[in-house]
């Protein structure tokens, strides 16, 4: 038996791998490229260090009054001191545990839906969707079971944004799906109603809708009859966003091949079963990016309710920075609000990407 030894592998050529090669290939491959790189570096040097210095290094993190803040950095004490207001608005501080409990119940309640091994997802999901809103309303509003009543005028901060967004999505999605079905219906009456509805709500700005709901609507209602301002805003948001959802869903339904409708019809599934078992599951999966886009816009649009005098996050920041004790702290407040909005929107975006991958059954060949 002959033994033999391989020669050792040669090291890779210096110019094709490693940091140096990457730099050369991507940043300094030509004269214009090199120039662009240098300009970009200069801009970064101009912007990033002062920003970091203001936001982190020179900023004041600990203390309890603005006198302790250094003038050259951000004064995060403002956020710390007013954190409760930003999260809960004017919800009575001693009752805020009820809001926390509502959020906790949502997280705990929804958790089984994300466990792969849990088998009764559909039944559990429906039960959750029916029971949770009732429970959440009881907890937040009170007035029953010995819980003190908290009127919606005291609800505010991020809590209000989240309520408007989640209830808005939960209301706009089913309504939008029905509108999309209606717009593609063979019955002319149904189609006309749906087209009119969609075109009307898409044609007006949300800010007008909210304004109308809060100022004009009471004028048309009989004297003494009025209903909750937040509820009015919420209904306005649901109707407005459902028109957008309808068009996104309709786009998805149009992408489903005619053969799918025919196959469903040929096996006697009928209209509703064809739609809910065959067409919509595929159409909704196709339009996840568009739907999430709409929902992200909806979440950001909830800050518009400030014009009808509701104290959501942005309005709370505005209120707090008008306090003489913290005058001039608006920048910190708005940076904080922006960061909170960004975290939620980015989270939604990442979740939708995960969902798309998970639901992909590989039929796009």
């Amino acid at each position, binding site marked *: 038996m002959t033994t033999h030894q391989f020669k050792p592998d040669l090291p890779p050529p210096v110019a094709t791998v490693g940091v140096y090669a990457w730099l050369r290939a991507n940043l300094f491959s030509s004269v214009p490229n090199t120039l662009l790189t240098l300009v970009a570096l200069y801009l970064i040097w101009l912007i990033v260090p002062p920003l970091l210095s203001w936001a982190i290094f020179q900023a004041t993190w600990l203390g309890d009054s603005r006198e302790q803040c250094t003038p050259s950095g951000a004064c995060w004490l403002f956020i710390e001191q007013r954190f409760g207001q930003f999260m809960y608005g004017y919800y009575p501080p001693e009752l805020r545990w009820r809001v926390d409990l509502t959020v906790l119940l949502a997280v705990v309640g929804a958790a089984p839906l994300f466990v792969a091994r849990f088998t009764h997802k559909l039944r559990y999901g429906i039960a959750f969707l029916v029971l949770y809103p009732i429970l959440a309303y009881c907890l937040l509003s009170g007035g029953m079971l010995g819980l003190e009543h908290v009127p919606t005028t005291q609800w505010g901060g991020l809590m209000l944004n989240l309520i408007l967004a989640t209830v808005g999505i939960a209301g706009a999605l089913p309504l939008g799906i029905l509108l999309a079905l209606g717009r593609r219906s063979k019955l002319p009456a149904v189609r006309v109603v749906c087209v009119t509805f969609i075109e009307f709500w898409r044609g007006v700005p949300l800010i007008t809708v909210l304004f109308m709901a809060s100022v004009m609507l009471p004028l048309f209602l009989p004297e003494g009859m009025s209903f909750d301002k937040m509820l009015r805003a919420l209904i306005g948001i649901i109707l407005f966003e459902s028109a957008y959802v309808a068009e996104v869903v309709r786009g998805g339904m149009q992408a489903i091949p005619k*053969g799918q409708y*025919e196959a469903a019809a040929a*096996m006697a*599934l*009928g209209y509703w079963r064809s739609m809910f*078992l065959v067409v919509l599951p595929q159409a909704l999966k196709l339009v996840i990016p568009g739907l999430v886009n709409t929902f992200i816009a909806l979440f950001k649009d909830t800050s518009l309710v400030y014009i009808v005098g509701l104290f959501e996050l942005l309005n709370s920041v505005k209120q707090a920075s008008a306090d003489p004790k913290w005058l001039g702290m608006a920048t910190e407040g708005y940076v904080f609000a922006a960061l909170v909005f960004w975290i939620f929107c980015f989270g939604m975006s990442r979740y939708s990407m995960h969902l798309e991958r998970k639901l992909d*059954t*590989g039929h796009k060949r």
Partner: protein
Amino acid sequence: MSDIKQPGADGIIRMEAVNKWYGQFHVLKDINLNVRQGERIVLCGPSGSGKSTTIRCINRLEEHQKGSIVVDGTELTNDLKQIENVRREVGMVFQHFNLFPHLTILQNCTLAPMWVRKMPKKEAEEIAMHYLQRVRIPEQAHKYPGQLSGGQQQRVAIARALCMKPKIMLFDEPTSALDPEMVKEVLDTMVGLANDGMTMLCVTHEMGFARTVADRVIFMDKGEIVEQAKPDDFFDRPQNERTQLFLGQILH
């Protein structure tokens, strides 16, 4: 025209003077067709001759404007209930399979039995596995349609239609979208079905298949039934000039 006995009032499908227009275009002209229980019919003809439209009228995927179609004792009108009753008894296999891509093979097969026949899930799955075995792909039951070859998908489509235990099966060019090497596996499945006595109407260009299993071959051209005969007569002694021309073109 031919020596074939047209079945009378006992036909499971009775089409009488059926006419259909797409706008100005007259697609079906006075189609008269009676099909006996257990009869196997092959429809052929040049493209645009109305053969697909004819069988699509039988389960009302297409509406006819004049004449009458009675399937299994039920007349097809605008009454949705009647249409659904007919569709329960008529299975259909399409050129492009039309499996539901978001459901597994097994779910494709159990969907209609569970939702239309209100069958318990366990029973529907047993029946589905039985038919998947018959088309020889039980091992693919938990895959998605996108993971199967064209021939396998078409065999699933046949199994899916059979799970509803239909009295009649319609095939709309079932092998036209398949790669040549997959045609045989689908035709074999269909031959098996024919041997079991299923009433079949099949639009196809597979003349070998027609010769082997058909009781009657129908030739259509320009929306009319031009000639119908037993396969031996049809292929060896075509009467009509248009039939001769068509056969001359496809059988070299």
